[in-house]
């Protein structure tokens, strides 16, 4: 018997743990918002060297965006219960992540070869700190993907884990899009 005054609670449809991923991403956004606004404030004070972004960073942008596409397809096939395809697509995404990492390192190497060091003008410092911190977040994503890869062999795999990982992966991809455009144009 149910009392008339009791309404169903208005809880979210998102599972609690996945929601935690969303909140975490908000805090990462704030981290980079802090850094990029510091960049703007510092730049306005002058004594600022304009740096053209190395072509490796462009390439890495393309790679990371492609990897979010493969990730998206992995989610799609997970919904259709096509486990084998999901595994291949997740692996591809992982390869994309590793390629991104390599390209970022090459980009740094190119910068240092052209005399742009962490120490020196603050604009270079920001470039290294921002791209480095982003890379760390992406590496975190790679670790998560590895865990998911392993779990995909488990019979009772449930898609919500894959989805949480995918949400984060899309996020770090789009984050680099923002950071790239910001560093290039601001």
């Amino acid at each position, binding site marked *: 018997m149910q009392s008339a*005054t009791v309404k*169903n609670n208005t809880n979210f449809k998102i599972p609690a*743990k996945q929601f*935690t991923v969303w909140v975490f991403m908000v805090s990462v956004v*704030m981290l980079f918002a*802090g850094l990029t606004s510091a960049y703007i404030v510092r730049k306005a*004070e002058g004594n600022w060297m304009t740096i053209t972004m190395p072509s490796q960073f462009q390439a890495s942008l393309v790679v990371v965006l492609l990897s979010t596409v493969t990730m998206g397809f992995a989610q799609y096939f997970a919904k259709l219960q096509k486990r084998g395809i999901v595994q291949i697509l997740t692996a591809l995404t992982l390869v994309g992540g590793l390629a991104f990492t390599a390209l970022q390192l090459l980009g740094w190497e190119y910068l240092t070869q052209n005399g742009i060091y962490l120490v020196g003008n603050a604009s270079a410092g920001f470039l290294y700190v921002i791209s480095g911190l982003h890379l760390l977040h992406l590496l975190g994503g790679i670790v998560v993907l590895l865990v998911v890869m392993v779990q995909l062999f488990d019979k009772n795999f449930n898609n919500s884990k894959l989805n949480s990982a995918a949400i984060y992966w899309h996020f770090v991809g789009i984050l680099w899009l923002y950071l790239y455009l910001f560093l290039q144009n601001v």
Partner: protein
Amino acid sequence: MAHEHHESFISKYIFSQDHKMIARQYLITGIFMGFVGGFLSIFFRLQLGWDGIDFTWLNGLFGNYLSSNFNEATGDVSYVLAPDKYLALVTMHGTILVFFVLTAGLSGTFSNLLIPLQIGARDMASPFLNMLSYWFFFLSTVIMLVSLFIETGPASAGWTIYPPLSALPKAIPGSGLGMTLWLASMAIFIASSLMGALNYISTVLNMRTKGLSMKKLPLTIWAFFLTAILGTLSFPVLFSAALLLIFDRSFGTSFYLDGIYLADGGVLDKTGGSPILFQHLFWFLGHPEVYIILMPALGITSEVISTNARKPIFGYKAMVISLLGISVLSFIVWGHHMFVTGMNPFLGSIFMIVTLIIAVPSAIKTFNYLATLWKGNIHFTNGMMFAIGLVSLFISGGLTGIWLGNAAIDIPLHNTYFVVAHFHIVMGASAIFGMFSGVYHWFPKMFGRMMDKKLGYIHFWLTFISVYLVFFPMHFIGLAGVPRRYYAFTNFDFADDFLDLNKFITYAAILGFAAQFVFLYNFIKSAISGEKAVKNPWRANTLEWSTEVNPGHGNWVGAIPSVYRGPHEYSKPGVDRDFLPQWISEEDLNQAVDYDSEDHDPIKRDVPSTTQNEESVTE
């Protein structure tokens, strides 16, 4: 389900994932840190009262703080506080109280204890993350404490760690290893509070029991929820500030440092850095941080006042909207800490206007507290005394905020004792009072026993009086232009008038500190042998009082109760009982309940037999 599964000592008391145990861990760590931070303040108050006072009695414990002076003529050795260690003490006092006691100790204790219990959940969304959050906090505590004992002393750049003192390792002794440890400790602390906040937010949004809409949430939960949102949005920015600082210190970048002249005659090998940049980033956290400290205390006060005035909180909606307003505004007012940094006066006036607008929601809350008390049937429990004390302090300290919010008044008052008075009253003391109020009120829920009421009164009055005696006179000292963070005032004629007042303040501070031992004694004694609590000792409406006196892991034996009404239905007109708990359905209410029975346990049937809520079972 509540269960009898076997738990080892370690999984029950140390690496516990039960939110109630984690709450107790936070509380005890917080109280410990409170005593450490308080002790440091007595130490430097003694120096302020009696410049060069002899600290021989402390030499064993605090050798590195005290420089020995050998008097050739008499052959005496005296130990006095070294000036740079004075700075170290103020820095650590502020850091410990602001972050370790009033952020982690307050939010960590009560968000953990009350969120699952008051929303009808068996635990947090992620109990594991919750446990991790405590142990990160513990680790950061240890690092911060260790830094007190290193040779060169702990960080000494103030709790706001402005560069260049914080950015240049050789600036002062505390800028070296002490500052490094401070940064390490705070980085871990930030991770801890983020983990806590993530959990609080998703638990409140996702795990409320049947019938508990956001509109029926107790104000405690609203406050904890918004506090967690503030934390998620602002702590990462502090992290980014600290990150750039670490790069400046350790990797030679120049984010905050310019080619400044050094004491040894040289010029620093840096170009173009801006210390003001740090201040912007710091206060973007720093101002929300003061509300991260205050809002949980305001939430606790709301519930305690409503329960003990036996009246609904006046203007529940207005209370929620004010909390929301304060939360939003707190992100756009940080510039009021920087009026004297040479900011464009136009920008200054914008910061001034938004700052003064914060007074509106603050005043609404104050008004509502008073209106709730008005003609209430007030029960002066210890919790209630501290809650009313908070209202008093919040008014006294809020008024000086309105002074300081005006750039023209702030410019002469900035960095004087007036500011010290303002924020100690409005934030420090208010939030501590909120915390005490919560401890006295929820002690029965945490430890299954009651605290001693008489000792509670003694604790309250001594604390209340000494807070005013310590901080009220500081307004006058500040108005006369006496700056904060000075080691001694004996070298300036204009400050001579205040030497006696400084002694007086020190006496009052010692009184206030001593009073805390009354609390400590009461706390420990009551936890061990206090009077056994009944299920609902304050006849309150919220869900935590529907559990067993000592709820097990899982909180409710049997089904989780549903919620049928808002949290503040006290003395409802036309109803013959003076409180209507959230968890009792209308039908059950109509059956006579004997709530004046022998055991003072007003609610006989705590788990409504009529409801099932199985989908909320998490285990």
